[in-house]
């Protein structure tokens, strides 16, 4: 790899991480807590502080918040399908609706499996739909016509008419995947998040304005580190995981212990679909799985009346109790007094003494009604910490696909003891591995494409 200065940016749901690398080695790194800091300003400041070192390229992995995948939060999307299949995506999905019932339309057209046109598409039907969309001020449309991948004549015709009315048209990408459901679902989600992606992209490119041109800023996908656009925003969902698998794995497994999630990544296996809350979505990425134990799991009494972790993850807004605003005790609160935690980027100077005390009070109150009759909060904390470490180790052993495991991420150092008995596990203390891996993987792919 030729010597080059690179900028890696990894944006998650609640934290963003920046790494400035020279010849693949970190020059400067930073993490920001997005609930308290602005992404654009933070990145601008980070780049400004190191203005003497201008990066040649920036590589970005962008994991959009799952809550923003809800169409209500990111603009209405209309769906146009072949007549009779208006509800196909939802019927074939889960209880989470992906489409808005008021914005479902159908076309009286039919292409057969062999590509023959059985019922030709009438332009006036499209005009009528376009007029209705104008009335409800809907700007984005998904086109899901049966067998359009075999013969796209109606799809092209419809796209042309709708675009002529100023509508943004999303059609499923042409791939080898014969299953239209996962292709349509991917298209629907891309349409849903395109504006959020565009906003995030504008923040990042805006922050790097004057430092890097748009062509030097690469938003990576999870399949091969290729650049993505607003129309394929969903492809970036697993970019950071795929980058970590490439960078840390070298064919081995990777356990990423981050603030937002504990993720087990396979260094050598790939998944072709994402099992989303709406059903399977076409999305190639390194095989990865969120562990059952997660950093923001709540603490409560279980069926036996004993302390345990709930299955519900609390969000980072307001976050764990040690940050001062959280109301529910979480797994990370158990480490609130651990010196390593308080020094981690993004959390430094944010730990609140009253918040930590409130957590202890909450634990004490629970202990009074628990069956264990242990009201020593210090002892309880140690026991629950021990349970956490055992569960992380246990689950990662069960998930292993390779003999070697690399544990990385900001919390790797905090939970390193979980793997002390395992000679095949290496704890990598690179706190900013996500953004650094993004930069290294992106650059590798870029070089390969040159």
């Amino acid at each position, binding site marked *: 790899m030729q010597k080059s200065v690179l900028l890696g940016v990894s944006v998650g749901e609640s934290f963003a991480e920046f790494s400035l690398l020279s010849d693949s080695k970190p020059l400067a790194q930073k993490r920001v807590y997005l609930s308290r800091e602005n992404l654009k300003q933070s990145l601008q400041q980070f780049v400004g502080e190191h203005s003497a070192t201008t990066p040649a390229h920036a590589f970005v992995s962008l994991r959009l918040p799952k809550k923003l995948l809800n169409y209500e939060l990111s603009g209405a999307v209309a769906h146009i399908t072949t007549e*009779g*299949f*208006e*509800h*196909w995506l939802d*019927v*074939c*999905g*889960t*209880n989470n609706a992906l489409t808005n019932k008021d914005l479902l339309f159908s076309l009286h057209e*039919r292409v*057969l*499996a062999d590509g023959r046109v059985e019922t030709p598409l009438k332009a006036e039907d499209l005009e009528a739909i376009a007029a209705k969309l104008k009335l409800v001020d809907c700007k984005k449309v998904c086109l899901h016509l*049966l*067998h359009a*991948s*075999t013969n796209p004549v109606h799809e092209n015709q419809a796209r042309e008419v709708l675009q002529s009315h100023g509508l943004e048209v999303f059609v499923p990408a042409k791939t080898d995947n*014969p*299953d*239209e*459901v*996962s292709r349509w679902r991917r298209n629907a989600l891309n349409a849903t998040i395109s504006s959020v992606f565009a906003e995030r992209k504008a923040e990042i490119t805006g922050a790097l304005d004057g430092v890097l041109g748009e062509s030097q800023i690469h938003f990576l996908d999870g399949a091969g580190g290729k650049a993505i656009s607003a129309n394929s925003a969903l492809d970036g969902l697993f970019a950071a995981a795929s980058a970590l698998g490439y960078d840390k794995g070298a064919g081995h497994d990777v356990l990423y212990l981050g603030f937002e999630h504990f993720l087990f990544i396979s260094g050598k296996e790939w998944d072709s679909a994402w099992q989303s809350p709406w*059903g*399977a979505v076409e999305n190639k990425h390194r095989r990865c799985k969120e562990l*059952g*134990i997660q950093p923001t799991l709540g603490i409560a009494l*279980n*069926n*036996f009346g*004993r*302390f*345990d972790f709930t299955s519900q993850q609390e969000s980072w807004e307001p976050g764990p109790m040690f940050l001062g605003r959280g109301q529910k005790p979480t797994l990370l609160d158990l480490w609130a007094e651990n010196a390593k935690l308080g020094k981690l980027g993004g959390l430094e100077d944010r730990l609140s003494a009253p918040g930590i005390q409130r957590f202890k009070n909450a634990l004490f109150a629970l202990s009074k009604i628990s069956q*264990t009759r*242990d009201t020593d909060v210090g002892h309880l904390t140690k*026991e*629950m910490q*021990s*349970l956490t470490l*055992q*569960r992380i*180790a*246990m*689950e990662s*052993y*069960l998930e*292993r696909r390779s003999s070697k495991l690399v544990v990385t991420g900001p919390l790797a150092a905090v939970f390193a003891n979980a793997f002390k*008995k*395992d000679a095949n596990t290496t704890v990598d203390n690179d706190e900013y591995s996500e953004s650094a891996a993004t930069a290294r993987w992106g650059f590798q792919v870029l070089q390969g494409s040159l």
Partner: protein
Amino acid sequence: MNYQLELLHSLLKDFLHGESALLTTDGEVLAVRGSQGVSYGTLVTAATTTSKYLKLQEGDITLLNDPYSGGTLLSDMTFIMAVSEDLLWVTRRSLPEHVKIAKSVEEEGLRIPPTPLRQKNQLNEMILSAMQAHPACPGRLVDWLKEQCQDMTVRAQKLLEAIELTGFTVTADLIENYISLSRKSATQKISERASGETRVDIVLDSGELLRLNMEIHDGRVSLDFSGTSAAKTVALTESATYGVCFHALSRYYGFEDLANSGSFSILQITKPAGCWLIGKYPAATYKGMTCGAAALQTAMELALAQIHSKQEKALSSHCPLRFSLRHNQHETLLVLSGGEGAQSGEAGRNAHLPSFSIEQMERDFPVKFHRVDVRHSTGGKGTFNGGRGIVIKLETRAEVEAAWMTDLTLHRPRLPKHCTHGDPCEVSLEFDGAHKTLPVLGQQKFSAGAVLTLCSGSGGGFGKD
């Protein structure tokens, strides 16, 4: 560490996926997991039957699909593996299923009694060859079995490593404590809700009567099926009956993640000899394991709704519509689930289809889909409507062979006073301008131009207007 119980519980949860169970070689059930009610009884029976006839050494794997030995459908293969000298792992993995209407289990397909598949780290090639030679052997079965054995061996090894490397010791005391606390928790969850007794009668279309007397007292549940008739064409096995009853109870009271010997002990079942709930070889079991199990689940929910009259819930449509299509070398099964029953303050949830590709179906079969949608139900109305079923309308473009089976409980049971019935499953045919409703189960060839409409049932409504 004092939290060994929680660690054991999470280990069981992380290790057991799909329909599976972990038992000690002494027969103590540590956990059963699965989405199908029948699994909660059959997986345990599969392990005990195997242990009775075969002495499994560490790493050995036994296979069965015989419903009378702890199997369910013949397309569901049950593997029993000795993970260590103390632990047995039972897991069920499925081959493609097809609607099979037959008079005996032998006609339903290849029936495999407990058969040693892997012994002393070697696959039993002789047995595999014998299976392959059987005329009813599904294609690629042997290769598939080898893949499953390989996967199970790897997973079992990981389990042992996980236990060893984390220094976790699964002692007899820990197991006893876990089972005892599970029993206590299940008893408490039941006793804090209500007690009482009730009777439910459900008549199947094929003429069988299901009579359930349920008694709940002091956190224990007694089910008495006295009065249930003998099998005519529907038969369920004893272990499947137990599983369906336990699963319905544990889901209702919220202790399904504590399915083990402890919670099993709260349930007592009395069944008259010869009734269809304890079918005997060689009775066919496909109908029983599908429609029969659904009828039993309905009876359990109805009985629980009657006892807990303040938390009445309308009946869900538990029996999916199964529709098999065959053309040349292609064969597929559409499973249309039914809608969920409504309850006070909440409408029932609509049914969903397991994901399949219409485009692929149209490429593989001479059919053209006209419509796939939620059904426009006329039943299941109330202040809160029942969840809707699914409707699929398709046209055949050349001759195809089809077999189907719908809900066999079209004789509607009496409902709690605030509930209404949903729509039943329905299969209808339009051909040459004529329209007719097809029977609840059947198999026939349809020539080109036939338009079939398949409707799964909808859930019942709550609150009469």
